[in-house]
């Protein structure tokens, strides 16, 4: 006789319906990236067709497709994107880790204010401050440079990184450092050799989130990167030329763009869930 703790039916229906909503457009993204001009606009929309890779060719600027006026030829943008989002992620995670540790361990004056301030940076609408970043960057000589965008990407993730990392450090008992301190080691030694290895999962989770936001950052980059430092999302948005929107190319770019993020996410999936409690739940547990 089957054993039912709870009916599985309702959860299955909920997940089922949601997966259709989530996967339908994803499927359409992949299908459209493989369609040629005719298939793209066919009515009824076709589910089965001969795949055509010209969208992808245009993305990477390969072959004759590259000659098309609106072909992206994303190689430069790809390099920009990788450099900017990787550096930005590393910096945000590094600084967020340091600040998260300080906020977790030291009760310095204004700590709570800092935490709120750090979170509130995520609330700033890019358009509100863009003009002044523009001005500031041109004064600092950072206009349209990777360095400038790295700074921006670090900034938008720093608050979140600090919050998530603080949550992880809160989960590490302070005795760890105390024992080391009693044994004559410095706090820096304890931090680097004992505490950091214990929050590796947290660092991975934080990096995962920062990377998603860095990789997809559009609002700042589209204004601040005018030519040289253009990243992939910025470049893609310009695939709307006079000849109309290159749908296949945009979809292909979307597919190409999401792959590294998805792989990263899959690798760190079990840490992500831990990190997203921000250390808040720990308080209410008995």
């Amino acid at each position, binding site marked *: 006789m089957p054993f039912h703790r709870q009916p599985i039916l309702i959860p299955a229906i909920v*997940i089922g319906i949601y997966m259709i909503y*989530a996967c339908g457009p994803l499927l359409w993204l992949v299908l459209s990236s493989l369609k040629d001009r005719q298939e793209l*606009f066919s009515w009824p929309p076709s589910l089965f067709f001969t795949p055509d890779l010209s969208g992808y060719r245009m993305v990477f600027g390969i072959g004759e497709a590259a000659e098309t006026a609106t072909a992206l030829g994303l190689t430069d943008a790809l390099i920009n994107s990788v450099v900017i989002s990787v550096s930005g992620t590393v910096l945000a995670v590094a600084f967020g880790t340091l600040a998260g540790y300080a906020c977790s361990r030291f009760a310095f004056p204004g700590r709570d204010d800092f935490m709120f301030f750090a979170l509130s940076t995520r609330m700033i609408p890019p358009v509100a401050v*863009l003009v002044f970043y523009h*001005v500031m960057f041109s004064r600092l000589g950072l206009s349209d440079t990777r360095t400038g965008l790295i700074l921006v990407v670090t900034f938008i993730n720093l608050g979140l990184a600090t919050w998530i990392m603080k949550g992880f450090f809160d989960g590490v008992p302070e005795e760890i450092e105390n024992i080391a301190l009693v044994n004559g080691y410095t706090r820096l030694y304890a931090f680097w050799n004992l505490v950091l290895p214990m929050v590796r999962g947290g660092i991975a989770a934080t990096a995962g989130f920062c990377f998603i936001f860095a990789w997809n950052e559009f609002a700042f980059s589209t204004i601040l990167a005018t030519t040289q430092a253009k990243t992939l999302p910025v470049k893609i948005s310009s695939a709307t030329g006079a000849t109309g929107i290159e749908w296949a190319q945009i979809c292909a770019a979307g597919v190409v763009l999401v792959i590294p993020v998805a792989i990263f996410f899959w690798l760190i999936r079990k840490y*992500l869930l831990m990190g997203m409690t921000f250390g808040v739940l720990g308080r209410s547990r008995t």
Partner: protein
Amino acid sequence: MRQAIPAGRTAAHAVPRAISDRTICGLFMAPALAILLLMVAYPFISLLYYSTLNFSILNPAKGSEFIGLQNYTRLLSRESVWERFVFTGQFVLATVVVQFCVGVAVAYAFQRNFKGRDLLFTIAMLPMMLCPIVVGFLWRYMFNSEWGVVNYLVTLLGFGKIDWLGVPGNALWAVVIADAWMWTPFVILLATAAFRGIPTDINEAAEIDGASPFFRFTRVTLPMSMPILLIAFLLRLIDAFKQSDLFFAMTGGGPGSDTETVAFRLGKIAFSHFYTGQASAFAVIMLVIIIGLSLIFVRLLTQQGRQD
């Protein structure tokens, strides 16, 4: 924990005098603080300053004239601006409510263990990882009234084709569907993390106490995960409030300017009309709203914490 705590050092290897905790705290905070202050303080001071000027960045030579609060009064007395706030409010309300109802329900369903759950979960997260601009174009493509797949499904159900993006009321819902598609995964992720944080014993105790799944959900699961759900709600609310990428890609603010959100309009004032002074005032208004909202939430959150 992998490393054992090493035994104490002998005096022979005495280290240089340890840096004090105070110094370490300062050193650790410094880079984050520096970047945040640099990136926030400069534009904020500028915002406040320029919001009192009649100034355009395109034409700095023309100079700037101090006009006090006129930028604010002009903006707030214009009906079209208020319409943007109303529209944004409708959008925020609709998309956040959809995301939360769907997200929390799906996260609760994902609490059940089954084969392939991790894979399914990761697939469910994918929309969030896509580039927002691609998401916008993808939905615009699917919502196309003539050859879009959405209308194909609509006709399959026996209805006529709908002009999704050309009619303001429809466009609102089209963007809500796209925004919820992209960001429900975020709610699922946070809600799942929150639900998993509830000790197994508690759930089992509730089952033994005779609680039905629904009773358990409303009396145990929800209240116990409230702190995180509040954070998620705040983040989603604010992100929805400043949403403009999707509108940019899907409707371009049209028809006319009927689907411009506050952030979209701000972008237009700042980068199409280049009324820098007025844009600054507009940005200040937006920030006041956002900071006000988040203060309310932080208050709620600390109240929650204090109950324990």
